């Protein structure tokens, strides 16, 4: 459902990176009649959905999550350095990332659990800092029911003040100068329920609407 709502953010002519994990699902929901060009960190532009049948898989045609995929007409392959030239150089219109936590200032934490020495930063930091717009797609709360949208991240940061939009199973929230603006709620969810599961105060948008897919 989160993936479906994320898919609506993708517009004709956009260069988009769908980060590791959950957001890669979104590639399944991209309208076929539009030129939405997906970028994979490992070196692809304009790739397609995940191939489930391993007998059809080519290990040299995988997305950044390591899943087999295929190239669409107009695709390009390139090396990792070129790929990050694209990301860091500000050439991507949109990055969709997963998160452990997002703070009210737009700080993102998505690479390391509390108290660990090891972690997986991957290309998340470059996507967070380099893309023109950053959308976080995640479950609204963690597995213990605790808010992932917090006043201050307790987990190690991926990047500061980088998130523009948060899309969860409960809400669509925009981060602006004024703070967190609740723009949409999921069907059957009230703004109060969203607030109850969110640590910082939400500003309820004047044109609050129900999420459409």
């Amino acid at each position, binding site marked *: 459902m989160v993936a479906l709502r994320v898919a609506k953010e993708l517009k004709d002519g956009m260069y988009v990176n769908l980060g590791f994990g959950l957001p890669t699902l979104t590639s399944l929901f991209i309208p076929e009649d539009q030129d939405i060009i997906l970028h994979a960190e490992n070196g692809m532009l304009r790739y397609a959905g995940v191939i489930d049948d391993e007998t059809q898989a080519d290990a040299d045609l995988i997305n950044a999550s390591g899943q087999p995929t295929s190239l669409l007409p107009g695709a390009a392959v390139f090396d990792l350095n070129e790929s990050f030239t694209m990301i860091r150089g500000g050439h991507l219109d949109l990055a969709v990332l997963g998160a452990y936590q997002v703070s009210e200032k737009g700080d993102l934490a998505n690479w390391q659990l509390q108290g660990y020495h*090891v972690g997986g930063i991957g290309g998340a930091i470059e996507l967070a800092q380099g893309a023109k717009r950053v959308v976080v797609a995640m479950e609204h709360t963690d597995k213990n029911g605790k808010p992932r949208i917090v006043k201050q991240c307790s987990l190690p940061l991926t990047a500061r003040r980088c998130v523009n939009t948060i899309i969860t199973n409960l809400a669509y929230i925009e981060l602006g100068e004024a703070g967190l603006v609740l723009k949409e709620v999921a069907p059957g969810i009230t703004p109060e329920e969203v607030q109850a599961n969110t640590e910082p105060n939400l500003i309820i948008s004047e044109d609050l609407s129900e999420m459409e897919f």
Partner: protein
Amino acid sequence: MNKVVVNLAEAIRDIEDGARIMVGGFAASGGANNLVQALIAKGTKDLTIICTGSPEWMPFVENDRAKKVISGFTSHSLRPEITEVIEAKVRAGKLEVETVPHGILSERIRARKAGIPAFYTPIGVGTVFGEGKETKLFDGDECVLERAIEADFALIRGHYGDRLGNLTCRFVARNRNTEMAGAAEVTIAEVEEIVEVGDIDPERVDIQGIYVQRVVRAPKIVKWLDGHEAV
């Protein structure tokens, strides 16, 4: 000039304990898996492994051959139980890890190859990745100074290779193989097939022979990210 060596053992003959090694590959694609296996078989230890993620460092860590891993993923991205094993090794002081963002690692490797000792980047400012690094303002933005990263050997994978060391890579198998070729003192490439000089289209040489010291033929081993192998 003939850079082709007869077998894997010969290709890695002079890799000694304590060496710093770059290993190409990203997930299932472009890993120098045969060279890695040969190095494990040789028993070389106390290695520093510089790579993308778990598919490249796992053999070294599982077999206690690595003293340090420098990688974008020092945890295992799909298997928490392996992450716990690695974390335990780090806590026990048996392994050192340095988690480096993919693109910064790529740029540091390329910098070495390109004779750039250091560069500034905004990536990492305000996080643990920028901690302890020199900073400087450029157009009002705080940037950190990143250093080129050195290695003794680069183990890379190509598709076709010739005796001059020219290589092509299939699709996304270019990944870190292109940047690592020439970034180490000695670059060793395993390839699917050795072809005649002139067989590779000059416009499709993805890695130029000038960066490659040794070429060895070895079959493709595909290791998917979840750990299972396939051909």
